[in-house]
Each structure stands twice: as structure tokens, then as C-alpha cells.
């Protein structure tokens, strides 16, 4: 099993209008670390992942995943479409 950890941080930041610096200040890390997290060069500790999840008010698995993540729009609208067909 690969050690890769995928995340949706860039999308969530854009959606919330939050800069890297804002996120870094909110969770108590350095701005460079946010960049490394987004690029997948660093895997956060459980505590940091939970802090980020709390900040975005989302479950941690909505932000981080061991599998490559589908685009958020497809997650939301893809599900709705399937539900509508039923």
C-alpha cells in the first residue's frame, strides 16, 4: 500500500476564500507546510488533520483520502443525478 495521502485542500480553500496564510494561522502551522500538504509532499498528523477538518467544518475523510479523490462537483452532482433517476 502506498503512503500517498490525497486531499482537497486547494479546492476547499478556494471555496471558502481562504488563503494559505489564513489556514496556516488558524491551525497553527507555517504557510510553507500548507503548500507541502496541498502538493502531497507531507502527510499531516492525525491531530493536524482533525484541526483542518474542524476548521472547514467537514469530516476528516471529506478532506483527506488514501485513494485519489474524485472532483467535488462530481461527488455532489453525480450522486444527485443517480438519486434523481431512481
Amino acid at each position, binding site marked *: 500500500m502506498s503512503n500517498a495521502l490525497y486531499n482537497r485542500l*486547494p479546492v476547499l*480553500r*478556494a*471555496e*471558502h*476564500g*481562504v*488563503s*494559505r*496564510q489564513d489556514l496556516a494561522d488558524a491551525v*497553527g*502551522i*507555517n504557510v*510553507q*507546510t*500548507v*503548500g*507541502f500538504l*496541498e*502538493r502531497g*509532499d*507531507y502527510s*499531516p*498528523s492525525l*491531530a*493536524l488533520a482533525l484541526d483542518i477538518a474542524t476548521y472547514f467544518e467537514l469530516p476528516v475523510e471529506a478532506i483527506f483520502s488514501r485513494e485519489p479523490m474524485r472532483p467535488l462537483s462530481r461527488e455532489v452532482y453525480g450522486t444527485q443525478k443517480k438519486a434523481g433517476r431512481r
Partner: protein
Amino acid sequence: MIQQMSFLGIPLRTQLQRRMLVVGYYMFVALFAGLGVWRGHGGLPGFLFPQIIVLGSMLGGLTVGRPVKPYSSGVVPDAYDSPISLTLSGRKVFSPYGPQLLDEREQSQRDHAHFVAYRILLVSLVAALIAYCSLYALNAAWTSLRASMLLWTIVVYAISLPQSVLLWTEPPMPVADVIPMHGV
């Protein structure tokens, strides 16, 4: 861990530039040591001690205003819970630039760099000992006179090694924050 994007006019934005700085630094140290050996220092003169401090801490780690962030000097009193964490945790560091935090990534990088540096140092010490013993067997008088320079070089090398490992291994910096901020 890299807090400056340039040092002595040398840009440090890319990994290659940081590695060039490390290579340049050790070339300078080797030149300095070589000069000392050539001149044949008999003892360890007083001026060599400030040189050890200045040269050893040139890349940072121990002082502020250098490429590598300080590791642990000056922990905020309420941030530690034991004398060991006072010197090792490095959570909050005071500097003229304000309190500096080593976050979890930086702490893990710092610890890894010291681990790697220790292993490199161990091999280097064995190599230096073998070299010294070989030279001593060839010419005891000449080698004894230059033992202090060998010691000087080892101390500077030992002090600077973790910072060099950090500069060498730090991945390329993330690109600037380019995502347009619309807000919701």
C-alpha cells in the same frame, strides 16, 4: 525550515541553489582548514574558537537571521513541561523577527536531519581517525602539529551538518498561492 530566500546574495529558492550553498560552504571550510594545515598551527589559538562558532552556525539552526530556522533556543516558558523539552522541543523560538514556531513538519524535518547528520558524522569520524593514524604513522611530528586543525574541522563540520542536511533535503518550495479567492 528555510526562513530566508537568499543568503549573502545567494538565492535559495530552488533545491539546486540550496545545494550549491552547502557545497560552497564546505569548500570554504575545507579551504580554511587547508590554509591552517599549510601554515601548520601548533596549538588551538584563541581566535579559532570564535571562528568555530561563526563558521559552524553560518547556515543557521543555532542563530537567527540565517537560512535555517533556529532549532530550539529560547522556548516560551509555558510551552515546555520538562528540562529536556526545554532544549529539544523547539516549539517556540524568540528572534528579532518575532516568535517563530516550528510546526510538526519542521520538527520532524529537524529530527530527521539530526539523525542523518549523526550517521554521516559517525562515518566521517571513523574516516578522519583512519586518515590521522595513517598520517601519524608516516610522519608523527608533522601530523601532531596539525592535530588541532583536524579537531577544528571536525567541530565545525559537526556543528553545521544538520543544517546542511536540511538545506540539502528540503524539497522545492510550493508555488505561490495562485488560487483566485472568491469567497462564499
